[in-house]
């Protein structure tokens, strides 16, 4: 086929990507370097990273993110497996449920949670710090569900779930053994990419943390954004760099897992 047209398209895609994402990012980055008047410097970054508030809130959100990922994986992997195996007609419904968080604004969820689990309710989860954290992890899991479910479901698609299940059963394995030793390792890349997104969501989340009044990174960012000029730009760039790091790691894992590759035809 015409490689010329192919080239032009490739460049067009790149151009769109640059205009859409590159330029704003570049603008932000350039701005973040101008904290010291008249010269480019990393002063903004130094200030941000040295702030004990930054370290505390980031650490807290990191912890929340990990808890969310664990809870999400435990919920999602068996569910996605089971839906594919036994309830294929349920898939549209499940898919719909996992999309709800995108559609119902986070504020509705929080609003509902606070009404349901406040100190005077039958399950006063907002009473203590640890139970509020638990509530928050539940909320974050809700927010992360669509990405995690979709990622895992896509990962499962490349497996012949039904036959692998039967093969494992005929060899004497239980469902638990199967999920732990066969399914989980085979969707590990999918889980990783879902986990990375979960991480990004939890780190940046503001509404839930603010309303439940927990010391998370989102409110801290918002505070900085409202009161400072250069630091938020630096924070955005840091977040972006973290993202690239994660992506790089995922690519690396991907390359090692080439046994999932579909055989090639000529």
């Amino acid at each position: 086929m015409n490689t010329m047209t192919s080239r032009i398209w490739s460049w067009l895609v790149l151009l769109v990507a640059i205009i859409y994402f590159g330029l704003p990012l570049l603008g932000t980055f350039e701005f973040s370097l101008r904290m010291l008047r008249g010269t480019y410097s990393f002063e903004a970054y130094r200030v941000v990273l040295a702030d004990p508030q930054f370290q505390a809130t980031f650490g807290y959100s990191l912890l929340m993110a990990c808890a969310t990922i664990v809870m999400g994986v435990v919920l999602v992997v068996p569910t996605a497996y089971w839906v594919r195996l036994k309830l294929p007609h349920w898939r549209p419904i499940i898919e719909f449920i996992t999309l709800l968080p995108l559609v119902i604004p986070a504020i509705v969820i929080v609003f509902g949670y606070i009404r349901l689990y406040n100190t005077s309710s039958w399950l006063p989860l907002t009473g203590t710090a640890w139970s509020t954290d638990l509530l928050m992890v539940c909320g974050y899991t809700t927010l992360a569900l669509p990405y995690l479910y979709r990622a895992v479901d896509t990962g499962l698609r490349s497996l012949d779930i039904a036959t692998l299940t039967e093969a494992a059963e005929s060899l004497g394995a239980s469902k638990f053994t199967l999920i732990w030793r066969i399914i989980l390792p085979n969707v590990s890349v999918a889980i990783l990419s879902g986990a990375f997104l979960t991480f990004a969501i939890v780190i940046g989340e503001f509404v839930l943390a603010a309303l439940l009044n927990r010391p998370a990174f989102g409110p801290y960012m918002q505070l900085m954004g409202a009161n400072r000029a250069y630091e938020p730009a630096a924070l955005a760039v840091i977040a972006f760099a973290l993202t690239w790091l994660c992506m790089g790691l995922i690519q690396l894992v991907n390359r090692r897992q080439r046994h999932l590759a579909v055989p090639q035809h000529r």
Partner: protein
Amino acid sequence: MAFLELEHLHKHYATQTVVQDFNLNVEQGEFISFLGPSGCGKTTVLRMIAGFETPSAGQIRIDGHDVVRLKPNQRNIGMVFQSYALFPNLTVAQNIGFGLSVARQPKTQIKQTVQEMLALIKLADLGERYPFQLSGGQQQRVALARALAIQPKVLLLDEPLSALDAKIRVALREDIRAIQRSLGITTIFVTHDQEEALSISDRIVVMNQGHIEQVDTPLAIYNQPSTRFVASFVGALNILNATVSAPEQGMLQIENQTLQLQQPLPHPMGTTIQLALRPEALSLTPKENTDQTLVGQVQQVQFLGSVLRVQLKAGAQNLVLDQFNQPQLIPIQVGQTLKVYFASNQVLLLGAG
């Protein structure tokens, strides 16, 4: 008492019956094929034995024990699938050892069994490979080894060769048979390919629309088909309409040509009945036992490699003849009139049509 007993097995889903009144006794060490067109229920019976489907009614006994209420992972049955179904994240050795590791056998024991199995399937050096690094034929060998490693009571093979190329298919089916013989394992092999079933089996179960048409040895299935379905499904067949002219003498008329079978016919004079003749039972040259002839006009000559297939027309009726290709044969011309010889004892009577 047979080793594997299937009694009055039924399976129906909401709207349709897929298996009805299936009865079969399999002796220990026997190699049985289920043969039939797709949708005939052969795979469903296999899956009921494995435990992946629950019979609507009937009993399944292995070695005297009823297994219907046992889960698949409690039945100790080896299963090989059309799609290989190897675990993609495990090496060949780990795949083969999976069942033993699930059963918590000691590691040295597992390692030894895996080595034996690898030697059995002639892939001793490939234990550390991953499934995606193997060819289809090799993957299926590994799947076979994996199923055999747990020393199952019964080995079930669900169209294991369908996904493979023709030459590998033939080689692997011979290997499967040889391994099965050497281990003496009771085996059920599901296929829609009649040549596969005929070449590999001790006995064949021919199925159609959920019921058994015939259970017999390959030779008997081919040479003495008990139903019209078996006759036409297994092997190619010429079906001819003939009119009974003298039942006691076994005399028939086909398009004004007379045949005389060596047996009286149970039909009154004037009845139209159907005869069947295998293409390879017909010959263009007379042989010692060819006591009958038919004359036809050549419609088409097809060269299939080892076989030359001649399509003739006797009046309004089609006749296909197979003969081995021989370079010195005189070429047959389309339109030519030829005499076809055959033995009266090779004629299958299909009854009044």
